[in-house]
Each structure stands twice: as C-alpha cells, then as structure tokens.
C-alpha cells in the first residue's frame, strides 16, 4: 500500500515541487544507510587504526548473524499485523534442543538441527492456533507460549548450560570463513535476500502486507487472511529456530536463559529497519542495515572504551527514534492519501 503512495509523486516528475518531494523521499529511504556510513566515518576518524580495519568489520559482520535472523523472523508476523513475543524463547529452546539431543542423547548434529527447526515450526503452529482459532490477540498468545517455552527449556536442560555440541556446527557457523567473514553472515544475508524476494516479488509477500495494513479490506478483497497469518507465524518460528541453530553454533553450547535477552535488540532493529529502504514498512534489508548500524555504533563505543551502559542508551534511544520516525512516515502517508 505504501508503495502505491510512494509511487504517485514520481509519476508527476515534471513539477519542481514533486521533484523535491521525490528527492526527499529518496533521502528518507536511504537515511539510515547514510547514518550508518556517518557512524563509520566518525569512528573511523577517531580511531582509524583500530576501527577502519578489515578484522573489525569482519568481526562486526560475523558476530551478528543470530540477531539478524531473529529480527527477520520478527518482521514476518509484524508485516501481517501480528506480534511474536515468543521468538527469543524459540531461539533459546531450539539451541537447547540441539544441545540435549546431540550431547545428551548422541543424535547426529543434522538430526538435532532438524528437531530444532521442527520446534520452531510447532511453536508457530501453536501461536497461530490460539491466535486465529480462539481470536486472542497475538501479543497475549505469544507472551504465554514464550513463557511456556522457557519452562520447557529449563525442564529439558535441568536449568544447566550444556556444552560439547558437535564442533562441526561451530565450524560451519563461525570458524569457516569466506572473504574473511564467518559463514554465519552469509546465512543471514541469504535469508534476508530470500525474504526480500518473497516480500517484493511474490503474491504471498504482497498478500501478507495487505493483511497487515487492513485485515477487513484484505478479507473483502478475497485474500485468505487466516491462511496468510498462519504462514507468517510458521515462518517466524522457523526463522527463530534457525537463529537458535546458529546461536548454538556460535559457542558450541546452549544455556537456558541468555538467548531471551535478544528480544529487545531484535525489536529495536525491526522498528529501526522500518524507517529505511521501504519507509513505513518492515523490510529485510532495512532490518539488516539496522542491526549493523546498531552494532557498528556499539563496537565504536567499545573501541573508545566507553562504559557498557552507554550501549543501552544507544539501543533504547534508537528504538524510540525509530518509532518516532515510523510515526512520521505514517503521518506523511496519511496526509498524502
């Protein structure tokens, strides 16, 4: 819908006022990217010998794949107008399932990964069932299932961190590199491009967007709203479990608590990402840029030796600014329509 709005000014290219508006729209699309480059420039100027190095950037790219994939998983239901608060718990449970099955029960790592993905799929199904069949708001349902999953995680792990996951997974996640960057980055990039393709070039993606923008309008237009929301919940669960697989592969272990702390950063990145590339819409590339903007800022602050609480200021501030900017975009769209 927003594409229809943003397309209209460009069709009247001859009018200077429209030309300026078009420029501003383009500027808005790439504002976050520009902000990212500015952050790189500022830290690069302050600490060129440390910050402007390939090891630094390869580390930045390689270490945030889990957060990128979790954020991608989050924006799928958000696009369809649902919210998934269980996503970080799915990540945690998936990584724990791998640890328990691989270390505790001697399953081959491939089978353990398949089981972890199945956990994500089942959780998506559970979320969809309660949200769609009982017509309970997704926020409440996923809050409940997330808490339930945390209980399951503690139960199957006996509340312990389990180490010793097959080193092949660690190799395939962070130890093997291409162009100096761990493979985890390329997995995240591939998933982002896949999601971009689905959102932008398939009817499935367009329908999800329509459902998110107005369920009744979508229903009256003949879009199978319930099915679309179900698919989005399932996809969200699968993405979260893939993030869980990489989370386990990053440290070769799984603990029952720490993954849940990725919830706020994922939301911050999702909302921040919605202000760029396709402003006003949750979009994969925007989310990826947002994750790397946030982590670039944090890395720069760390390199300067700034206290870690400043990182919270940075994350929290970015979230508020993102929501404010999204609101601004929405306001502009409404005024244009």
């Amino acid at each position, binding site marked *: 819908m927003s594409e229809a709005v943003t397309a209209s000014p460009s069709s009247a290219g001859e009018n200077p006022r429209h030309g300026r508006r078009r420029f501003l729209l383009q500027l808005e699309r790439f504002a976050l990217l520009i902000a990212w480059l500015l952050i790189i420039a500022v830290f690069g*100027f*302050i*600490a060129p010998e*440390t910050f402007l*190095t390939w*090891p*630094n950037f390869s*580390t930045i790219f*390689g*270490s945030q794949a889990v957060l990128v994939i979790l954020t991608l998983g989050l924006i799928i239901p958000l696009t369809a107008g649902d919210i998934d608060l269980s996503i970080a718990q799915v990540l945690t449970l998936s990584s724990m399932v791998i640890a328990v099955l691989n*270390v505790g029960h001697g399953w081959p790592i491939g089978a353990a990964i398949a089981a972890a993905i199945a956990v994500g799929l089942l959780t998506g199904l559970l979320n969809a069932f309660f949200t769609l069949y009982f017509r309970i708001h997704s926020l409440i349902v996923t809050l409940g299932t997330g808490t339930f999953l945390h209980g399951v995680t*503690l139960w199957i792990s*006996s*509340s*312990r*961190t*389990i*180490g*010793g996951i097959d*080193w092949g997974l*660690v190799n395939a996640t*962070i*130890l093997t590199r291409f162009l100096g960057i*761990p493979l985890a980055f390329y997995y995240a990039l591939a998933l982002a491009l896949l999601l971009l393709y689905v959102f932008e070039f398939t009817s499935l993606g367009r329908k999800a967007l329509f459902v998110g923008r107005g369920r009744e309008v979508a229903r009256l237009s003949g879009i199978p709203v319930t099915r679309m929301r179900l698919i989005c919940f399932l996809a969200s669960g699968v993405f979260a479990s893939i993030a869980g697989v990489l989370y386990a592969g*990053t*440290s*070769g*272990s799984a*603990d*029952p*608590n*720490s*993954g*849940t*702390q*990725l919830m*706020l*950063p994922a939301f911050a990145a999702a909302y921040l990402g919605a202000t760029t590339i396709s402003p006003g819409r949750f979009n994969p590339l925007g989310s990826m840029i947002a994750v790397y903007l946030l*982590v670039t800022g*944090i*890395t720069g602050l*760390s*390199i*300067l*030796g*700034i*206290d*870690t*609480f*400043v*990182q*919270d200021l940075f994350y929290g501030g970015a979230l508020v600014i993102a929501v404010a900017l999204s609101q601004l975009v929405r306001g502009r769209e409404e005024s244009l329509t």
Partner: protein
Amino acid sequence: MKTKYLAGLAGFAIVFSMAAPAAALDMEAIKASIAEHQKLPTFTPPGEPFDAKSCMAGKKAMVVPFSSAVEFTGGVATRMTEIAKEIGFQYDHYQTQGQPSQWIQGINQAITQRYDLVDVLMSDPRVLAPQAMQADQAGLKIVAAHASGFDTPAPAPFQNVHIDYTQAGRLMAQWAILKTEGRANVLAIVAEDSFSANSLQNGIKEVMAECEECKVQYLNVPVTDWATRMQSTVQSALLRDPSINYILPIYDGMAQFVVPAVELTQSADRVKIATFNGSPYVLQLVQQGEVEMDIGESIDWVAHAIVDAEMRMLCGLPPVKDPKVPLYIFDASNAHTAGTPPQISTGYGDAYLSGYRKLWGLQ
C-alpha cells in the same frame, strides 16, 4: 589522543590500564601458589567438632536462592536440604525464579512460620536489606551465604558464610603471569553488579600490581548484558589492543560469550582464557582446549560448608571465619577427572564427605 579526549569529555571511560609500578615479582611464590591449588583438595575442619543432631533438634531453616532454576544457586540449595535431612533437621528450599517478589515472599514466610534461620543464597543480598531487618527483629538469623569474600562482608544484619573470592582472583592473575613469564597483558572482565566481583577484582589487582611488565584492563559487563553485550565488547577490546594475551572472565558463565569473541577476532593463537567457578560446560571447554584454566569449587562441598556454618550459628558455637571451601584448578592435565562430559561436584575428591560427618558426630 582524540580517543582519550572524547572518552574524557563523555566522562564514561571505565576501561583503564595499569602499568603497575611495584614490588618485585616472586615467580617462585606464584608457582608454589598455583601448584598448591592443583593438588586434590583435602578436608580442613572449619571449627571444633560438635553433636549436630542433638543441637539442631527442633530447629528449622529455610534457603531462598536467587533462582532455583540456576545451576549453582538451585543446586546448592537442594543439596543443603538433603544434607539437613541426613543430619535430622528441617531445612526447606523456597523455590524461586530470580524474581525479587519471590525472595521477599520467601523471607516473609520464614518470619511468619517462625523459622530459626533464613539463608538468602544470591549474588547481591543487599537488595533484601529491609526484609533482613524484619527477619532480624523477628529473631531469625539471616544469612547471606556464598555472597561475599573476606574483604567485603555483606552488611548487618546479614551474617556471612564467606568464600575466598579474593584468592580466586589472585589465582587467575597468577596463572596469567606464570604462563607469560611475567609479561601478561590481561583483559579482566568483571560484573560489578555482583557482590563478590569486588573481592575477585581485588585479588586480580593485588597480584597484577606486583608485576612490573604486566598490563591489565578491566571491562565491566553487568550480568543482564552478558548475552547481548559481552561478545561484541570483548571483540572490540581485542581489536583495540592486539597485544592482549590473557582474558580473565571472573565468572565462567561469561566464557560462552568470550570464546566466540576470541574465535571471531582470530585471536585464539595468542589469547588464553582463565576463569573461575568450575561449571561443567566450561570444564568441557577446558577439555576441548578452548579455555585454558578454570578454578572450580564443588557445589556439594559448598553446600556442606554452608550447612556447617549455619548449624554453628544456631547452636551458639563460635562463628566460622573461614569455611575452608577449596579452590581447585582444572586445566588440560586434570579436566578429565571432572567426567566426560563433566559433572557437577566431580573431580574434587570425597575427603569432605567423611570429614564433615565426623565433625558433626554422625560417624
């Protein structure tokens, strides 16, 4: 220069380096200290023998752990109740999930049900000071076990069962100095929101101050930020100073975030990790060579030591100044003794089992 200026302007700089001036480095003493903690622990009585069964008859105690779902606090609490049962008195484990409201509820329940002692087994008991005052006024003994080192006791009315955290800090620093032959460039990762961190940090500072050619930086990452901040912060520190050769995470729960940081910055060849706690999954990392050393303390031994100290409080015996819980160094040479895969309280020997039972008059 620019960096220093900006950091100073913001007033946020916390990472600091100390090229310590100082006393001469006694490598032989360091070697002896490390060797002493590599020997299989023996039992040293923390006080005089007493008849635990008769003096504890009719008394009851409650433990309110930080979280029953956390391996260490939950595990110690559970073992304490089992040990008490064996002795013959009531010791209840108030199940919690890390929520302050549950801790308060537990203490209130101990007060209203007229328990004799309540133990808050958590990293920072100071958050329960008002409830501790209430318990004290109601005549209960309120204990903060395992929370503090000898140099930073929990404030009154809490009674302490100290652990020698300062010594653990010393051992980590001594290990780094010994292995680098006096040229350690250390990144010590602390969590200042944890009460025992002060003592651990004091131990590291004390030893590093004696090493003229050593450097140490302290990086504070609060416990709640470990999952989201630890890895990126450590990565940045390694990139900022490529001469760092040792990372000392003061708790081994940090290791799961530090190991990937070392791998991602391709620093594994030059940077070693030495830490404290002896969690089974970190001992597995020691077995795999990802972590070089982990100072362990046995959960079961700790539980015995706490029960012993608390029984003495309730029986009117002289208080335990040092519960004599051993710190045992695990490295590549002995990590297998913890089991494959490593198990809780395994590898420390069993000298304490008969030692405590004789001390309590059960054998």
